[in-house]
C-alpha cells in the first residue's frame, strides 16, 4: 500500500507533457483575476474580490499579501496552497536579512518561490502547487520589479501582467494600453490597473481590491472610497472620450 505513494505523481506523458502541472495551470485559470502593473515610481496590484457570503467577515479573505516591507504578491488559484507558499516566502525574506544583512531583491524571492514550486513537481507523492503568483516590489537600488511565477516553477519579469480567470482578456487590454504615458504618474498607473480590471469585472469598483507599493514605502491597500473615486474619474474620462469622438464624426 505504501509503495503506491512512493511514485512521483508528476510523471512525464509519452509526448513529453507533465499533465499534473498542466492540470494545476487549469486550476489557476479558475481563480479570480489579478493584475500587476510596474510603473516608474510605483507598483500596483489589483484583484477581483470574490463576493462574500452574507454572514462572512470580509476582512479574512485577503489575496494581496506583503512578503516584506518592500515586496508583496497576489495569487490566483488554490487559496490553501497560496498560504503555504506565502508563509515560506515570508520566512525566507527574514532568513535572507539575517544571513546576508540585506533585504531580498524581488528577483531573489521570486526565484526562491519558483524553486519551491519546481521541487513539488519532482517529489515523491506530492502534487504541484495550484497557484500562479504576481510578485512586485522595489529593489534596494530603487528599481521597480514585477515577476510572475506559475505551477511549473518558471518565472519571468513583466512590465504588466494578469493571472486567473480572464487573464487573456486583461493581458490583451494591457498590451494595447500600457504605454509610457499611461504609467507616467502614480495615479495614472493605478487607473490603468482599475481600467484593466473593469474590463472583466461585473459590478464596477465594489468588487476590486487594490494595493500599491511606492519606492521606500510599505504596502498600502486602497480603501473602497478611494477606488470608487478613481472609478468615477475613469468613467468621466470615458464619457469625455466618447463625446469627442461623436463631435469628430459629426464635423
Amino acid at each position, binding site marked *: 500500500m505504501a509503495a503506491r505513494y512512493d511514485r512521483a505523481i508528476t510523471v512525464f506523458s509519452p509526448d513529453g507533457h507533465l499533465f499534473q502541472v498542466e492540470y494545476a495551470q487549469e486550476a489557476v485559470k479558475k481563480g479570480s483575476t489579478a493584475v500587476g502593473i510596474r510603473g516608474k515610481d510605483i507598483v500596483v496590484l489589483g484583484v477581483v474580490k470574490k463576493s462574500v457570503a452574507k454572514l462572512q467577515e470580509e476582512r479574512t479573505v485577503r489575496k494581496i499579501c506583503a512578503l516584506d516591507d518592500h515586496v508583496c504578491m497576489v495569487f490566483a488559484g488554490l487559496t490553501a496552497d497560496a498560504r503555504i507558499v506565502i508563509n515560506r516566502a515570508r520566512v525566507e525574506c527574514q532568513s535572507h536579512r539575517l544571513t546576508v*544583512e540585506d533585504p531580498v531583491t524581488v528577483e531573489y524571492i521570486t526565484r526562491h518561490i519558483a524553486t519551491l514550486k519546481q521541487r513539488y513537481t519532482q517529489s515523491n507523492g506530492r502534487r504541484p502547487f495550484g497557484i500562479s503568483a504576481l510578485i512586485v516590489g522595489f529593489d534596494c537600488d530603487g528599481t521597480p520589479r514585477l515577476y510572475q511565477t506559475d505551477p511549473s516553477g518558471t518565472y519571468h519579469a513583466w512590465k504588466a501582467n494578469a493571472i486567473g480567470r480572464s487573464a487573456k482578456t486583461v493581458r490583451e487590454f494591457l498590451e494595447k494600453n500600457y504605454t509610457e504615458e499611461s504609467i507616467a504618474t502614480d495615479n495614472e498607473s493605478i487607473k490603468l490597473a482599475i481600467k484593466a480590471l473593469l474590463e472583466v469585472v461585473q459590478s464596477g469598483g465594489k468588487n476590486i481590491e487594490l494595493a500599491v507599493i511606492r519606492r521606500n514605502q510599505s504596502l498600502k491597500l486602497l480603501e473602497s472610497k478611494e477606488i470608487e473615486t478613481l472609478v468615477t474619474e475613469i468613467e468621466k474620462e470615458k464619457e469625455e472620450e466618447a463625446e469627442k469622438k461623436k463631435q469628430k464624426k459629426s464635423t
Partner: protein
Amino acid sequence: MALASVLQSESVDFSNYGRQRHGFASGLYEAELGLESVGGDRLSFALSTSCSNEDGPDRKIEFLHGTTTLAFKFQHGVIVAVDSRATAGSYIASQTVKKVIEINPYLLGTMAGGAADCSFWERLLARQCRVYELRNKERISVAAASKLLANMVYQYKGMGLSMGTMVCGWDKTGPGLYYVDSEGNRVCGDLFAVGSGSMYAYGIVDSGLKQKDLTVEEACDLGRRAIYQATYRDAYSGGQVNLYHVHSEGWTRVSQSDVLMLHQQYQAEKA
C-alpha cells in the same frame, strides 16, 4: 604524556577532562587556561605557550597565536598588514608564512590561530562567495561574506577550531572590515589587530590615525610601521611585513618588506 607531566601539570588534568567530555573545546580550552597574563580581552589572541601544543599525545598543530595581523579602514579603503613568522613554542618554524588569504579579487582574509583552520575555512568561504555571485549576478557584500564564515565555524564551536580572521573588502556600501573568530564573534569595525603583537601594533596605529584624511602612501606607511614595531617587541612576530590595500577596484599587494631592512631604514631616519 610523560613530557606533558614534566611541563605544566594543570594542563594535563584538563586535557583528560577535555577528552572525556565530547562537547568541550580541547586546544582552545587549555590555551585560555594558562593565560592570565593577557587581559580579559578575548579578541586578542593569547601568547603561544607550550601547553597549547601539548594538547594530547597526537596533537602537533602549530598555532599562529604568535603573530601580528592588523587591518584598518581609511578614506581610500582598507589597509591590511601582517607579519610572516610561525612559531612552535620558542622554535621559529618559518619566517615566510603567507598570513593573508586572497578569497577573491575584492575580498581578503587574514590568518591568526590555526593555519590549517584559517586557510581551509577561508577557501570554503571563497567557494560560497563565488556561488553567491553566480546565483545573484552581483558580488557578495563584505557583511554577507563574513556572516557566512561566522555561521560556518559556529557549527563547530567547542570542537577545537582555532581561527581569528579579519574579512576585508570593498562592496557597494564602501570599504568593509569584519573580525570573525572560531568562538563565534563577528564584529564590524574600523580597526583591528590580532595576535600576540597586537597591543604594540594598536599603539602605533591609534596614534597615527589621529590625523584624519590619510593618503594611500601615509596609510601604507602606518600599517608597515605598526607591524614593524610589533615585531620589534614581540618575540613571536617577525619575518616580513606583507601589506595589501583594498580599494574600489579590488585589492592590490602593495609591498613585502623584510623587518630587518625596515629596522635599518627607520634607524637611518632617526639619525
